[in-house]
Each structure stands twice: as structure tokens, then as C-alpha cells.
């Protein structure tokens, strides 16, 4: 089956500096869609951005990500983090492995902590 790996459990960054949260995946299928979800403290996860096009940059709320099928990655980046970006971030994959029922395979999550 599909798998998604987020290698960092916690990333601490100083306000104003750039950040990259890593996401890699394994799937037997070429047709894939990727999602980054953000979860603020005591809130529900909500969609941050999505992509299904290889090598195309997707942006939302200052964050961006590019799906690279050649390296099986969909890293999340921001050029200048803010204190309000502190949250738990999930990478998730949907592929035809789910038989079209739109199940998502989530990574383990990365906590982004932005410090002054």
C-alpha cells in the first residue's frame, strides 16, 4: 500500500527565517494527489494546499510546495515564517491504491514551532 513519511517530528525556526517541512512517499501508482493539512492547537486539521501535477508549484497563504515524482517528494516551504505559523502539519497522499474511494494516507505529522 501507499506510505507517506515526514521525517521531522519537530521543527523549530526563528521568526522571519525560511522553513522546509519534508514529505516523501511510496506508491505503485503514477496518478497521485497530494495535500498539506495544517492543524492549530485544539482545532481540526484543515487543508492548506494540494497538488497533482508533477513539477508544478502550488501556493497558498505564503506556503508553497512542488510535487516531484522523480524524487517522490512534496516538501512544504515558506520563505519567512511568522509566529502564527506554529502548528502541526500533515502531508497526505491519495492514489488509485484506494480504489477511487478517496482515502488519504497521512504522514506522522511535523510540529512547526516558530520562536521570536
Amino acid at each position, binding site marked *: 500500500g501507499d506510505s507517506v513519511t515526514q521525517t521531522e517530528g519537530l521543527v523549530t525556526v526563528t521568526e522571519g527565517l525560511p522553513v522546509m517541512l519534508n514529505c516523501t512517499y511510496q506508491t505503485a501508482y503514477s*496518478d497521485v494527489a497530494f495535500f498539506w493539512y495544517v492543524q492549530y492547537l485544539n482545532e481540526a*486539521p484543515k487543508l492548506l494546499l494540494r497538488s497533482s501535477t508533477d513539477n508544478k508549484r502550488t501556493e497558498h497563504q505564503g506556503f508553497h510546495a512542488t510535487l516531484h515524482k522523480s524524487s517522490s517528494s512534496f516538501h512544504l516551504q515558506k520563505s519567512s515564517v511568522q509566529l502564527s505559523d506554529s502548528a502541526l502539519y*500533515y502531508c497526505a497522499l*491519495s492514489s488509485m491504491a484506494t480504489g*477511487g474511494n478517496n482515502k488519504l494516507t497521512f504522514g506522522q505529522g511535523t510540529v512547526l514551532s516558530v520562536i521570536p
Partner: protein
Amino acid sequence: EAAVTQSPRNKVAVTGGKVTLSCNQTNNHNNMYWYRQDTGHGLRLIHYSYGAGSTEKGDIPDGYKASRPSQENFSLILELATPSQTSVYFCASGDAGGINYAEQFFGPGTRLTVL
């Protein structure tokens, strides 16, 4: 406003007791999902449903049952709760269709503690 709601928001149960977590969605989505969230494990799928009357096992179904009596409602049932089921549970809804429609909309979560 379309939404996914869950009840109760907090629940304390005793070992061996029965627990029912409820989820309601007004998104008119065919698919609904139950996840548990634990530190280091992320979101893990327990059960899901394609529509009223259907339930399917997810990745960690042992110890849980599900019920989808209507398009709007999806329940998670712990017949014999155990302390290992202490967790935060999220319900989500989503469209049917291709992978590009796989976005899921989450409820606020239920914090369950089994003593």
C-alpha cells in the same frame, strides 16, 4: 455554513464500558471517515463509509465498530472500551470521485479518556 460536527467533545469512560461517538455533516458528501490521532502516529483511519448503510474497515479497525444510518450521520462505537483507546478522534467527510477530489473536511474532534 457547511460543517462537520462531533459529539461529545470530551468523554471520560470506564474500562469495559460502551462508548458511542457521533458525527454529523452538512456538506452532502458521500464519504465519511473516522480517524484517531496520537502523537508520533499522526492520523490513522479506523473506519470509513461510502454512503448510508455502508461501512468499511480502515487501517486500525480492531476494537471499533461503525454505523452510517444516513447521509449525514456516522457513528463510531467502542463496545468494550480499553485504556489503549484513549485518544483524540476526528470525523471527516469528503466527495466521492477521483483522487483530485480527495480533500476531506474535518470535525473539531472528540477527546476520549478511558480509565
